[in-house]
């Protein structure tokens, strides 16, 4: 097993380097003039200057590996550039936007786990019951209804028609209290968490009220996937011999499922963690855009639309590294839990 883990760890830098190359190649698709425009914020900078001179100056006509090396050096130094869509340095933009994204993801994980995994195994245990039928219909519609359709529908229903939830991140008075009154300490930037740390339920309730709809929208898609995987995995496990044996031994069904089936059925579920994160990253882009939440997803969408290359490249790198590392951890854990893997 140790050999397996070491092998995985050795591959890691290789994959990360590949990631960098792919990301850079995307940038490299631009012609030198476009690259120049990416660097230059204003027309006037290009006035009275021959663009070709500037292209030479920035080395934009050099072979790709030369430019790559230059960029790579900057990335290693942590200098990711200036994001014109965020009006901040890329590093600062991450610092500002990440808490919002983390908050959204954290809260979304609750319905995802409850609605996905719990409902999934429930529907497998009670195969063909009402719960099962409901779960299956839910899964297949969840799979089919695009997130942006669901989001707009929610916006229309709960914001426009019913006036249940307000848009934005915080109400005006709460926002002023949190950020300018000096009576509230911002520890993490994750407002709900900070509200708990400040033991301030007024702020917490307001923050939650604004979060409910985006959280549900974000959870929606991962829900369907997890439900599906959990259900089929659970069904498969329940057909295994040792479950039959357990039942034959006369153990109550509840115990059989809790002690024996659930643990094993969740192993394949864990392996799709990487996929779930990848799906969430995509989901964040859409959710944050629709609900106007200042997170990294919305930032990335703006960056793509407005050709903010430093931001876009940094975002891709970030999400790539996140997924690679998450997959690595899952694989290693998996290898520890399930000895069969090591044979591969």
């Amino acid at each position, binding site marked *: 097993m140790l050999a397996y883990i070491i092998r995985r760890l050795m591959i890691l830098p290789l994959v990360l380097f590949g990631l960098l190359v792919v990301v850079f190649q995307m940038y490299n698709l631009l012609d030198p003039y476009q690259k120049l425009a990416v660097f230059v914020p204003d027309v006037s900078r290009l006035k009275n200057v021959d663009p070709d001179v500037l292209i030479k100056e920035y080395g934009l006509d050099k072979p790709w590996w030369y430019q790559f090396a230059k960029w790579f050096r900057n990335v290693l130094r942590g200098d990711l550039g200036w994001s014109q869509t965020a009006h901040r340095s890329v590093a600062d933009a991450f610092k500002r936007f990440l808490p919002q994204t983390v908050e959204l993801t954290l809260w979304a994980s609750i319905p995802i786990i409850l609605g996905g995994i719990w409902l999934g195994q429930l529907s497998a245990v009670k195969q063909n019951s009402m719960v099962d039928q409901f779960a299956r219909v839910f899964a297949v519609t969840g799979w089919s209804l695009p997130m942006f359709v669901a989001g*707009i*529908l929610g*916006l229309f229903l709960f914001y*426009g028609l019913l006036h249940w939830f307000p848009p934005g991140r915080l109400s005006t008075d709460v926002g002023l209290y949190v950020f300018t009154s000096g009576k509230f300490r911002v520890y993490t930037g994750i407002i709900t968490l900070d509200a708990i740390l400040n033991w301030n339920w007024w702020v917490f309730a307001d923050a939650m009220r604004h979060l409910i709809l985006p959280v549900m929208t974000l959870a929606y898609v991962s829900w369907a996937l997890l439900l599906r995987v959990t259900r*089929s995995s659970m069904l498969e496990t329940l057909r295994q011999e040792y479950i039959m044996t357990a039942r034959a031994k006369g153990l109550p069904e509840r115990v059989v499922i809790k002690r024996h089936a659930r643990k094993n059925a969740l192993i394949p579920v864990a392996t799709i963690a990487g996929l779930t994160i990848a*799906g969430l990253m995509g989901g964040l882009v859409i959710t944050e855009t629709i609900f106007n939440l200042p997170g990294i997803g919305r930032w990335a*969408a703006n960056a793509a*639309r407005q050709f903010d290359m430093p931001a876009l490249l940094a*975002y891709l790198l970030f999400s790539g590294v996140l997924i690679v590392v998450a*997959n690595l951890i899952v694989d290693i854990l998996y290898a520890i839990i399930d000895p069969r893997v090591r044979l591969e």
Partner: protein
Amino acid sequence: MKTAIKLLKNPLGLTGVVLLVFFGVVALVAPYIAPPKWPDEPFRMPRYGYWSEPRPPQPGHPFGLSAGQYDIFYGCVWGTRLAWIVSLLVVGLSTAIGVTLGMIGAFYGGIVDEVIMRITDVFYAFPFLSAAMALAAILGHTVKSGVIALVTFGWMVYARLMRGEVLRLKEMDYVQAARAVGVPIYRILISHILPNAIWPVFVTATMNMGSIVITFAALSFLGVGLPQDYADWGQMISFSRDWIIGLHGNPLAYWYTFVFPGGAITLFCLAWNLVGDALRDILDPRLRGRIAI
């Protein structure tokens, strides 16, 4: 044949097939039910005036006019055709790439396999939608760039699947026997392995058709997909976004801008998922899908 009959006997599968047939017919007869204004650019939606405010369904415009006075019926019909073209192209191309690479890797093994699988790993590390969004933005606003973006970050699942299948089949007696008597490798691959290994890939591809359409529409929705006047469901849904709150006293004032394109894309994906689900149950109950948006 047996598969097809089984599929039609499954009520959910049948629903899916019926829906697909419907969408297929719409796509085929699009030039007749919604004659294009510019025959050489049929996907460009004609606009009826330059007002911004949408107008409700009326004679001549059965689904109404969306923000910017684009005919919603026209957009939905040609959007259907576009959805077919895009999903078939993307799934076809990514399957072809994935299958080829997976097969080569698994069959030759060793360093070839290692290199291919590491490349797969690298591409797997990108979140599908985000990466496609970035690439589409860089390539510019055309169908071609959207397709390239989706294929670039979508072929890996087929490669892995194919590799697994081939690895399994490689050890089978008949393949070993064929190798032993000196049948050329490409013949083994094409006539022995491919026909057997392709089914799981086929099922996965079916299940991905819907999610490809969703992702492609998401690109337009996010503003990095097609040009504004292109008949695309995602585009039309994004038109509705700024009007969805409705008017005072009439929150449903602009319902038609959202319901028709939103309904079309949802039903289209639903159809593929129903068919895919049923197929999976029939062909291999152990297959799992991959993530969509």
